[in-house]
């Protein structure tokens, strides 16, 4: 069986009280099933996101560095992150700390674990990267109990998973999620808008400008025949839900298309409990109707 120890940074959104708590819980359930031993970073804090950086850049890096230091203290330098904004913040912190000598001195003074000869350099990973490149097809397929054959899944990456660094996939046309979907039997839809901006935080301050943008993305997915839209970002997810509510009356098809986190979909194919995944019975029944029932013909288990 696959065994690996990593630390986990939930961030505000994916934590137990955040709006994306089921992104968090479904990811943990999936990782547990695969055999990854996940330890939450103790007493973690805000990643020092772009909103904080807009006010105080140096302090934002110090906030990020505290989380990295906690992971090092736990002896688990490989850090898994779900939220793309947190992922980018901590990755950026890491880059800045090791290229800006004044910052490095300040960070070392606060957190002696940095630059300590015995401790390693933190390795910040997004969960998609980890699942595709470390877990891989073989281990993945061993855990699939219910193939989602024929389900037309539309992946929506949003912006900051691959930009600006493009660390593990193409910055404009990534395909990592599609690879995962093919392992669980689903049919990924190729959308030209999959990394188009969802407007991010601007939905709070500039709704008039960004809503038409998100509506366009949703409508494009409907035209392409999506049966399920899948995200990997708490903010993309929320913005798509907001746009869905706004166009529900005029675009009838949209009410039948659930918007889910990609780990919820994986969890479904791993046959994990609905309450851990945070998906309702109605969604599951709806998706089941779309899935070509070949799994039962093979006796429930695939491969």
């Amino acid at each position, binding site marked *: 069986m696959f065994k690996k120890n990593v630390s986990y940074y939930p961030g505000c959104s994916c934590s137990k009280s955040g709006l994306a708590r089921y992104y968090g819980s479904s990811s943990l359930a999936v990782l547990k099933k695969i055999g990854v031993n996940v330890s939450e970073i103790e007493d973690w804090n*805000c990643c020092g996101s772009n909103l904080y950086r807009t006010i105080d850049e140096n302090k934002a890096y110090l906030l990020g560095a505290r989380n990295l230091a906690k992971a090092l203290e736990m002896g688990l330098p490989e850090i898994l992150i779900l939220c793309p904004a947190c992922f980018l913040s901590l990755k950026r912190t890491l880059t800045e700390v090791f290229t800006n000598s004044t910052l490095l001195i300040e960070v070392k003074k606060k957190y002696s674990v940095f630059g300590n000869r015995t401790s390693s350099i933190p390795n910040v990973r997004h969960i998609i990267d980890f699942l595709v490149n470390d877990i891989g097809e073989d281990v993945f397929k061993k855990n699939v109990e219910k193939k989602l054959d024929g389900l037309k899944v539309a992946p929506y990456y949003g912006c900051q998973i691959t930009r600006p660094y493009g660390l593990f996939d193409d910055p404009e046309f990534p395909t990592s999620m599609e690879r995962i979907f093919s392992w669980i039997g689903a049919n990924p839809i190729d959308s030209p808008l999959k990394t188009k901006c969802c407007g991010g935080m601007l939905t709070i301050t500039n709704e008039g400008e960004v809503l038409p943008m998100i509506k366009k993305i949703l409508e494009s997915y409907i035209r392409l025949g999506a049966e399920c839209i899948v995200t990997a970002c708490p903010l993309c997810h929320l913005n798509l839900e907001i746009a869905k509510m706004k166009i529900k009356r005029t675009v009838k098809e949209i009410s039948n298309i659930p918007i889910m986190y990609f780990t919820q979909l994986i969890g479904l194919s791993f046959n994990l409990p609905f309450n851990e995944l945070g998906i309702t019975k109605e969604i599951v029944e709806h998706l089941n109707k779309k899935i070509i029932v070949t799994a039962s013909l093979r006796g429930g288990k695939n491969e």
Partner: protein
Amino acid sequence: MNVQITHLINSDKKIHAVVEKCIQCGTCSASCPLNQYMDYTPRQLIALVREGMIDEALKSRTSWLCSTCYLCAVRCPVKINIGDFMTSLKRYAIKNGYSDNLPYSKLTKTYVDLVNKYGRISETKLIITFSLKTNPLKLLKMLPLSAKLLREGILSLSLEKVKNIQEIRT
């Protein structure tokens, strides 16, 4: 060079890099998903700064409409990060009192206050605090969404404070 431009460029190496290297090709402007709402396109904003028209640049709504999706950054032929340039410009505008009444500026301040107090944020708390400060009526408009989130059991005001909060504040 006038005093204003020297002060701006020296305040931030990211602004400096953009002003120095930009070739004015306009790839950033064409890539920007929000370009149609901007008074100056990203390329024009850079040109303004170069010309020393700092007041115009800082009063423009362009940087405030940047969602930092970094499409401009990955497409830029001279590899300058225009998204980060926008963030730097916002920071400079806030620091120098150009943006006290802008909603986005208030949002960032609300966010920072929450982090400094709790070490973390809660999206619900952030949106409510921000709306009360700016436009309480907005909360009414959000009722349908709140009702949906409440039904799904994910709307909560609880926020677990970082235990060692002193480390955050100093």
